């Protein structure tokens, strides 16, 4: 018996009668005989719900999430207000499909329209889409947007070596086998080498992708850069942790053309990396080249405000191989989480969280640098994440910090071999308390002795 299958034997008989066949097997008679499985699949037989629960519980118990976490590098341990999961569990939302039938989907469409507005406000740009997969794939989509939007024949994307190493890898995967040149701009003292960038600018450069705070945690200073790029006919693409934009200068204020990133920090648990949400916003003139779904506002027959998926002529189901992207399903429900989070925190709250992250990260940073043998990698402004260099290998230090109840940070050398050995990225969110940080400092002192 399977609880999700409602058919009684009589139902099946009655249905077969209407169809005019003797058995269900006859409905598979169009399939070549040799393809029909003779034996059941080699997977265990089905289980009752409670046994599934216990199996899943025992798997979950083999994960360790009790440690105090200072892990970041693209996924962060933030406070999530109770309202977020409450709204997400409304099954009118989570059991719906993409809102193709707008009149029956006004709720989700309006929520996405509000999400787009909030992300535009945070990044300081004019238009947004309904979401992309994550912040890393958003970089590829932004690069395509740039290539499609600047003067014909432009075939080069420059990107900084201070992009998250995974973003750089995803970009290389995306554009391998394509007639697009990807060139990496080196870094100098922890941020993008802007002189090298200027030297690489030439006709044919469609866009330049930078990240701030960059993967080391440092804030990039982009003063004057947008103008320089625009003079060359190139677009500036800026990736940012959107929470940092509660205090830091957003893409729009830097004069950037496209903003991208990942909204995991805004209302989504780390969940081993997914789901999160890739966001993309841009200047108004890039709207018709944007990838993916876009919620728009219009009027119904009676002149009432109504929402729908708009500008669909860009998309794969209409344009097929000439679409601006192949994306179809995105991360809608996770985008809803971010919208609810931003609505709940609100204008003052988002600034306060961002400020608390900055204050707490600097508290820990100053204690570590003053009181332990760890050294800062560089002396640079940062938001809620910073790299320190340990006098020992990270592979030695991390397990011993683990024994003391801490996920002490991310071993950056493992993420990107060009980072010096012993470099630890330490992320501090509003969720960490002073007491936890003080214990962390004491633990690290012990371990480094």
């Amino acid at each position, binding site marked *: 018996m399977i609880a999700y299958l409602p058919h009684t034997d009589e139902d099946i008989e009655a249905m077969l009668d209407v169809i005019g066949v003797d058995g269900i097997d006859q409905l598979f008679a169009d399939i070549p005989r040799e393809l029909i499985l003779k034996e059941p699949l*080699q*997977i265990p037989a089905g289980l009752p719900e409670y046994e599934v629960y216990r199996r899943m519980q025992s798997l979950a118990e083999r994960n360790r999430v009790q440690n105090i976490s200072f892990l970041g590098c693209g996924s962060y341990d933030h406070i999530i207000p109770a309202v977020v999961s409450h709204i997400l569990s409304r099954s009118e*939302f989570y059991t719906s499909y993409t*809102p193709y039938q707008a009149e029956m989907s006004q709720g989700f469409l309006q929520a996405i329209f509000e999400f787009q507005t909030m992300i535009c406000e945070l990044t300081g740009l004019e*238009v947004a889409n309904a979401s992309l997969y994550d912040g890393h794939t958003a970089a590829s989509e932004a690069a395509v947007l740039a290539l499609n939007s600047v003067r014909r024949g432009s075939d080069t994307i420059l990107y900084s070596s201070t992009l998250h190493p995974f973003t750089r890898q995803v970009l290389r995967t995306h554009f391998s086998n394509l007639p697009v040149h990807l060139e990496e701009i080196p870094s100098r003292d922890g941020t993008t080498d802007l002189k090298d960038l200027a030297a690489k600018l030439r006709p044919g450069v469609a866009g330049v992708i930078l990240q701030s705070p960059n993967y080391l945690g440092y804030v990039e200073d982009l003063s004057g850069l947008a103008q320089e790029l625009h003079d060359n006919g190139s677009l500036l693409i800026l990736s940012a942790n959107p929470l940092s934009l509660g205090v830091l*200068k957003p893409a729009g204020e830097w004069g950037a053309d496209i903003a991208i990133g990942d909204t995991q920090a805004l209302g989504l648990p780390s969940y081993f990396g997914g789901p999160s949400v890739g966001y993309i916003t841009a200047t108004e003139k890039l709207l018709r080249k944007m990838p993916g779904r876009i919620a728009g506002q219009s009027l119904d027959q009676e002149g009432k405000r109504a929402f729908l998926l708009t500008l669909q002529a860009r998309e794969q189901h209409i344009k097929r191989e000439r679409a601006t992207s192949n994306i*179809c399903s995105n991360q809608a429900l996770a985008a809803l989480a971010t919208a609810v989070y931003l609505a709940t925190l609100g204008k003052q709250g988002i600034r306060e969280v961002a400020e608390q992250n900055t*204050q707490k990260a600097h508290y820990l940073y100053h204690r570590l640098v003053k009181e332990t043998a760890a050294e800062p990698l560089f002396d640079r*402004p940062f938001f809620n994440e910073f790299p320190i260099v340990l006098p020992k290998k990270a592979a030695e230090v991390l397990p011993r910090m683990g024994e003391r109840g801490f996920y002490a940070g991310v071993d950056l050398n493992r993420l990107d071999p060009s980072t010096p050995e012993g470099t630890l990225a330490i992320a501090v969110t509003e969720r960490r308390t002073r007491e936890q940080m003080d214990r962390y400092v004491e633990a690290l002192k012990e371990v480094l002795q």
Partner: protein
Amino acid sequence: MSGKNNPLIFELSKQGRRGYRLPDLDVPHRELTSLVKSHLLREQEPRLPEVSEVEVIRHYTSLSRRNYGVDLGFYPLGSCTMKYNPKINEQVAGFESFVRLHPLQPEESAQGILTLMHELLVGLCEVTGMSWGTLQPFAGAQGEFTGMKLFKAYFEKRGERGRNKVLVPDSAHGTNPASAHLAGFEVVEIRSDSRGLISLDSVKDHLDESLAGIMLTNPNTLGLFEEDILEISEAVHSSGGLLYYDGANLNAIVGKVRPGDMGFNVVHLNLHKTFSTPHGGGGPGSGPVLVSDTLLPFLPVPDVVKRADGYHLENNRPDTIGRLSGFYGNVAVMVKAYAYLLTMGSDGLARVGELAVLNANYLKERLKRSFNLPYDRTCKHEFVLSAQQLKERFGVTALDVAKRLLDFGIHPPTVYFPLIVPEALMIEPTETENIEVLDRFVEVMETILQEAKENPEALRQAPSRTPVGRIDEVLAARKPVVRWHPENGESSETGAQP
């Protein structure tokens, strides 16, 4: 309803209201400008709403009531497999020890999730008859892109760079040609024959050194099994090409027939279709990709591997196509799909395919008495009606039928797809609907037919019982408004700006 009755969250905003109280800052406060230089700080505050928690809850609860999901009723959206989303899946996916896992925490502290991912892949390989795969793709379209990259890597390794053509049927999902093009292939559309199928004839002109392969959905988007699949498979392989299986329609044959046995080299699945995970209003989905032996070396990294000391994420794959996304995909979706796999097991999955096909054929037989069925054959999980005759006789289109269904509280079928059927209505009931629901749908469709004859104008005005009436798409595309503008203030409540 006017805009005033359904305000945007921004229109509820009142200066000074707060929806959340954070813990007090417990470290000494320092001037922000002493930590980060002022020219790096934001100048203009983001205009986010200022609302209390009560307003947040009422606002989004009210929005949810203006939305429709499977839990409310029938959702026969073709090619989307809108089956019931079991609640146990949601419950177990909410375990704290899954939810709070950090993607970069030590592998030995994440053995539960790595075990689950490995076991899920083992199960999916058995279901599809493939050798190994990746769970990284976030959705079907990214799975397709991955598959096309695998094709590229395979031919590059063999020094066959000239193989740049991918055959895609005219009935294929739009993502197929878009994904193949994105990966750098030239897309060649091939035509379905009078049966609605791809025959050996339609591929035989393309069997040369420029052929990379073919993308097929089987059963196809007409809901028909590609009967000539073994001949096509042999022909493509013997000319050096590869076969890609779009798993959007796997629900029809799950537990009965396997793509691997048909000769496919790459398969993508949609866990949010066949494996019952909710679609979430457009995602997160999950599009695992599974491959045959020949393509194993090219799979993306990291790979989930099992060794004597436990499970690991392996990055050392010299011929890999690389990394597809930041971390490992939509892990929460994998947890739900795994719970479903445990619940259904081998016996349950076979029953899924059987009953999905039974439901579709029952509905087809009953509806073809009153509606035109262009390809009248035994279908699999779905079938496609045409409203072409309705259009010619009464001026009532597939869109009108769809919009009128909304008034009866039923989600309409997929309309105007596949492109090879004019005025298409693509209907997929899934196995989780009972006979009463199907009978009710037939009754409603017959009522609509009657209305088309008696009062076609009313159908063209439908829907009338939904929160809003038919929406002006042309206005939305001509003067796009994709965000709220504070400066428009009150006037934006009455609609789009002129």
